[in-house]
């Protein structure tokens, strides 16, 4: 085995087809950040316990620090940068803005993608369902109160 066992991997990111030459040890998080320049997903813990690196693969959210880039061949990857086109804001993004759903903002892309996944599964979640679904995303600033309210506001907005 060499340290340059690169291979070409093709997948879609935010609807665009991409091709990268990467080594197996590059995590999906490293690939989107370092190879594709999409730095919205953050590395907070490197072992799947903080959710800052949450991105969506084939319709479900995962911790991209615990996945390899080479696994993505042919898969559909969506990051925070693709949630709303251009300068548009998704209703979830608006809800986090207007309800104080973040302070430092480092965890926010992960929370927003987890919220998107939740509202696709359960359009009208209870507070308990929101808290359960977001338990894999750590926030150290807000105490979660305003995050829960942001999710509730987003659900209300999207269902109206």
């Amino acid at each position, binding site marked *: *085995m*060499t*340290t340059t*066992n690169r*291979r070409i991997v093709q997948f879609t990111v935010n609807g665009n087809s991409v091709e990268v030459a990467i*080594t*197996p*040890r590059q*995590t999906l998080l490293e690939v989107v950040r370092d190879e594709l320049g999409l730095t919205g997903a953050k590395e907070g813990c*490197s*072992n*799947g*316990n903080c*959710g800052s690196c*949450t991105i969506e693969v084939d319709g*479900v*959210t*995962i*911790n991209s*620090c*615990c*996945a*390899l880039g*080479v*696994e993505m*061949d042919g898969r559909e990857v969506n990051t925070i940068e693709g949630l709303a086109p251009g300068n548009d804001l998704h209703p979830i993004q608006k809800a986090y803005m207007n309800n104080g759903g973040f302070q430092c903002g480092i965890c926010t892309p992960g929370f927003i993608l*987890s919220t998107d*996944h*939740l509202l696709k599964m359960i359009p009208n979640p209870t507070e308990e369902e929101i808290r*359960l*679904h977001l*338990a*894999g*995303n750590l926030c150290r600033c807000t105490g979660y109160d305003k995050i829960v309210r942001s999710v509730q506001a987003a659900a209300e907005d999207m269902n109206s």
Partner: protein
Amino acid sequence: MRNFDYVAPTSLTEAVQAFGQAGDKARALAGGTDIIDQIRIGRRTPELLIDTKRVPEMMVFEGDGAGGLRIGAALPLYRVRDDANVQATYPALATASGLVGAVQIQNRATLGGNVGNAAPSGDTIPPLVVLGSTVVIAGPRGTREEPVENIFAGPGQMTIAPDECLVEFRVPAPKANSSSYYVRFIPRAEMDIAVVGVGVSLTLNGGGQIEDVNISLASVAPTPVRATDAENVLRGETLTAALAREAGEQAEHHASPISDVRGSADYRRELTKVLTRRAVAACAAQLGVNVT
């Protein structure tokens, strides 16, 4: 992270060949939620990761034709967690599948990984054991089926050979009038490793007595263990609160825990009693027998 190679076989034949050639130099990469971190911190040092998610046999999720269930070793746990049949027929397994990490982990992690990691704390293991599940193992010497209960050798160690791989789990149809339950204790509400976990399956006879019972404990021994003393005091009896408590006391005989950052050995023994009592009572409650 140290470097390694990666292959993604697309058939069981290719997979068996890959594991057969690499032997102990390879590890399976299913959900990756354990192995990638283990490589990062140097706990495991495989030279090759074999991605099992493109092997159709390892992604099955269907009936076994006899009322039971086949679950591919690389199927993400959220599929098990959210399946209405699993929730109704194998509640312990549905519960445990929803306890492994958080949503993002459950969207990736697999039964094959949770079992294959062979951590004494694996949440899905007690449910698989008490439900009488088997696992299909493939290797260069052919395919065999083993009870899940028999494949653990120690923390992180399985009895299967390094050149073999886990293909699928088979969970038999439960008998009439039976149910299962899994409970674990962790300090926080979620996102934690079981300090103690208890899986129970119960079958009641027409008279309401316990016809059959299986109890499996997690995190209290080098491998998941059966609490046979607790099973013995329950079998043939009508459940009462006192009997559930006695089952807890008996279960403690099977606990030989260690002390670590997640809890002392003494605390784990105490929790074994409490959780066994609660799991037995909760499982019976699912069958309409309320003792608390």
